[in-house]
């Protein structure tokens, strides 16, 4: 037949339920550990119980004699892997994933063995029965703001940025804020644990996994096992949350080793407890902020120093001063990102890395400055809107922060706010409101896509995207439909398969933007090829695209999404309980592809902000160096009862230079949210909380104002 796309209303911008929604609500959607394989064996990881030292011996013989046990892999018998290669995400891979290569234990929870058995029950019991003898060495796991080994390093951006004379500007300021803020270890805890099944099929390594980028994982596995990239296929159709944690991890590598040794499919799934050691986390931060301003609120000085931690085996810098490099300018502007290496696991990207903890400190400090100056917190921010990037000097490609604040203030009822703290009561509760600004970089990564016009008049898009809950699969369907000028029903988007070719990962709020770009390029060319009288052959007509050149041609700008966060809290000063009563965010985040799912992305981020402000805290036991309470009963994430009515809205946001117009929405929702809650707690109680989470004991001991 011939394909004659009909003119129609655009799909982008209108609400669509998820294309895989029916599968998700009926339980038909299969996640990585749910795909059956004949002859499957089950692997169970054994993690180090000491924080630092050396493996002296493993008593494998009794374990090998246990029912169903097929092998015990460890540093003495595991296949060798290469680690001296540049990883796909820049730098060498985290050696925590390159399991069983030596006898060193550099941090608690280091994988020391994999026990493989016929059933998960047998594997678990055998793994627990494996006795490992260690030579223990002293460890240092205590993160402190003044750790002597801390040093500035580059992370996202340079280690240090400096302009102007900070001390002179502070001295000349009418008001100065000098405060320290801390955030604790935070754990992603996606609901679906990390799990992978590996098998060899006709000389090709096949891995079914739960990850944020199959090409990324496939590339790393090819490098680690010295395989030709074409000999590795990784699939990841449905992903039960990632938040930055689902990249290359010990479980995939261990599964590949076991599948190689046993010549049968092997599945390795992390337990929830193991995820605390193996899946990465957000480093704690200790931040110092100094602000100096004129009486009218104009900033003369801004200093933001951030310290985070990393492991002794891999570099990761949380870079919490990131928001200060974008949000506010000052005559003297200094930022530093430092790290200290401790005997702990390597932290990693976690939803809004840098920006989430950094905005808590920066936006709390702005609130403190507003209080000192007697200036409205929104006015203070609007008076400091920069013309150009404070560090880069680049012009902004659309900076609609003030529109967010105006719209947010109107919807939230900010104009009626009494700025005095500690004066509103509702029964036992003190009430307060707070606000904060948000921003997150709007980036894109090179991607390829293939769009096929099928003989039946439908279209198939193949792109190595990942839908980790973002609604990407649905958004890309709408983008493709508009690009092809057909209704979404005629477009089928297939994702999560490394055989589809290189594409950006689901990370850094870049996914939908990057993938949409590639789909539009391919679709445009396909439409040109499909002249009205062209007959589509049975195998279809396929066009491939690659955005590498288009991305390179994009003008250099400060590209970000923005937001204004508002929170109302209730605080019981007698018990220290804090409840968020309502929350509202207004965002400038480019073109909103699917309002239904976009709202969920933004409010979900705000819920993370509530969780970060009030609940989340990974606790480390100093004596053993390991976690205390590594489970979901001790590590609290916000539950239903913690989350009130949360609203997200958006303003028009266009970047004329940008051919796609989409910005990321996965992360900006958390940025500033914890600060808005903390600022509201101050407004309720008159007490400033600079250390997260704002636990009941902290509120209780901080007391209440005399009012």
């Amino acid at each position, binding site marked *: 037949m011939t394909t004659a796309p009909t003119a129609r209303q655009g799909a982008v911008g209108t609400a669509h*339920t*998820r294309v*895989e*929604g*029916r*599968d*998700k*609500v*009926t*339980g*038909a*959607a*299969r*996640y990585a*550990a*749910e795909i*059956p394989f004949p002859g499957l064996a089950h692997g169970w990881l054994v993690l180090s119980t000491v924080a630092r030292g050396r493996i002296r011996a493993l008593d494998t013989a009794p374990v090998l004699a246990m029912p169903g046990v097929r092998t015990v892999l460890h540093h003495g018998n595991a296949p060798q892997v290469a680690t001296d290669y540049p990883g796909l995400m820049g730098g060498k891979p985290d050696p925590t994933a390159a399991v069983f290569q030596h006898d060193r234990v550099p941090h608690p929870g280091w994988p020391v063995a994999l026990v493989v058995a016929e*059933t*998960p*029950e*047998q594997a678990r*019991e055998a793994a627990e029965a494996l006795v490992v003898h260690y030579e223990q060495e002293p460890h240092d796991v205590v993160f402190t703001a003044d750790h002597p080994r801390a040093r500035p390093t580059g992370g996202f951006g340079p280690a240090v940025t400096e302009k102007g004379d900070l001390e002179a500007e502070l001295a000349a300021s009418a008001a100065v804020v000098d405060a320290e803020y801390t955030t604790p270890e935070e754990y*992603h805890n*996606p*609901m*679906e*644990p990390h799990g992978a099944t590996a098998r060899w099929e006709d000389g090709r390594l096949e891995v079914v996994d739960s990850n944020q980028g199959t090409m990324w994982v496939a590339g790393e596995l090819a490098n680690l096992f010295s395989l030709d990239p074409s000999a590795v296929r990784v699939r990841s159709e*449905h*992903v*039960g*949350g990632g*938040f930055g944690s689902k990249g290359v991890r010990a479980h995939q590598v261990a599964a590949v080793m076991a599948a190689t040794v046993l010549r049968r499919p092997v599945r390795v*799934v992390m337990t*929830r407890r193991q995820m605390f050691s193996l899946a990465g986390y957000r480093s704690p931060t200790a931040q110092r902020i100094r602000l100096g301003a004129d009486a009218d609120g104009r900033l003369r000085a801004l200093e933001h120093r951030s310290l985070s931690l990393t492991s002794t085996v891999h570099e990761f810098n949380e870079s919490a001063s990131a928001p200060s490099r974008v949000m506010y300018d000052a005559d003297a502007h200094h930022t530093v990102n430092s790290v200290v290496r401790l005997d702990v696991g390597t932290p990693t990207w976690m939803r809004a890395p840098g920006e989430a903890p950094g905005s808590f400190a920066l936006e709390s400090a702005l609130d403190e400055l507003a209080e000192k100056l007697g200036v409205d917190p929104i006015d203070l921010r609007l008076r400091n809107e920069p013309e150009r990037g404070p560090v880069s000097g680049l012009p902004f490609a659309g900076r609609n922060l003030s529109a967010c604040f105006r719209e947010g203030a109107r919807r939230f009822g900010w104009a009626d706010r009494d700025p005095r703290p500690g004066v509103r009561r509702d029964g036992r509760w003190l009430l307060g409101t707070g606000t904060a600004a948000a921003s997150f970089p709007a980036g894109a990564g090179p991607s390829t896509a293939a769009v096929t016009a099928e003989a039946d008049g439908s279209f198939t898009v193949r792109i190595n995207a990942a839908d*980790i*809950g973002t*609604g990407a699969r649905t958004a890309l369907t709408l983008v493709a439909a508009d690009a092809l000028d057909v209704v979404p029903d005629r477009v089928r988007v297939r994702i999560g398969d490394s055989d589809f070719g290189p594409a950006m990962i689901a990370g850094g709020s870049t996914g939908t933007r990057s993938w949409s770009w590639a789909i539009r390029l391919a679709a445009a060319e396909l439409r040109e090829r499909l002249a009205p009288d062209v007959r589509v052959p049975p195998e279809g007509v396929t066009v491939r695209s690659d955005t590498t050149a288009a991305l390179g041609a994009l003008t250099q700008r400060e590209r970000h999404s923005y937001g204004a966060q508002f929170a109302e809290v209730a605080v019981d000063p007698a018990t220290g309980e804090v409840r968020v009563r309502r929350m509202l965010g207004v965002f400038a985040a480019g073109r909103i592809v699917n309002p*239904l*799912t976009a*709202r*969920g*992305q933004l*409010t*979900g*981020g*705000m*819920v*993370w902000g509530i*969780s970060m402000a009030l609940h989340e805290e990974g606790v480390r036991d100093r004596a053993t160096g390991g976690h205390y309470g590594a*489970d*979901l*009963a001790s590590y609290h*994430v*916000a*539950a*239903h*009862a913690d*989350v009130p*009515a*949360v609203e997200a809205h958006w303003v028009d946001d266009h970047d004329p230079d940008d051919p796609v117009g989409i910005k990321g929405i996965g992360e900006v929702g958390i940025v500033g949210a914890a600060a808005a809650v903390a600022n509201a707690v101050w407004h309720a109680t008159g007490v400033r909380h600079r250390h997260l989470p704002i636990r009941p004991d902290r509120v209780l001991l901080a007391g209440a104002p005399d009012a």
Partner: protein
Amino acid sequence: MSSAPSSTYSAVTLTVNGEKHTLTVDHRTTLLDALRERLDLTGTKKGCDQGQCGACTVLVDGRRNLSCLQLAVAAEGREITTIEGVAEGDGLHPVQEAFLELDGYQCGYCTPGQICSAIAVIEEHAAGWPSAATDDLRPEAGPPPLTPEEIRERMSGNLCRCGAYVSIVQAVARAAADRSAAKEAVA
């Protein structure tokens, strides 16, 4: 339960979604693992495997339970309903419909547990069970209004890390309202 072939294994008959399945289970096997690994009913999810997240929620004799803390061998004789069995025929259960239309999920992994839990919440509420959010506990007070606060408290055993709580609560409220409207129409 039939006589045990060994002291650590037993043959059990599990009634799942109205269908009987007889299998020999290692006593250590949880109902969750029996469903997922033995019966290929993978809609029931393993989030924490220790009763701390609610992803494994199923209905046992009509009541919501955590299948990760239920031993399969001890589930003999119980009526088990999983997400695969909550709808009648090929249609969707009204709670599933509401989750789908109101986007009451993101990654979807906690979703079957949330839906099974929500189905039970609506029944528990209709039966007059109070919750920690209920002010008036007197039995004669009847079921409290199913406010968002009541729904949040009753659903709190189902964690959603994506933070889809706002739309989940809307979905539960809609399904509950539709149910009572339907009951009134019948009455």
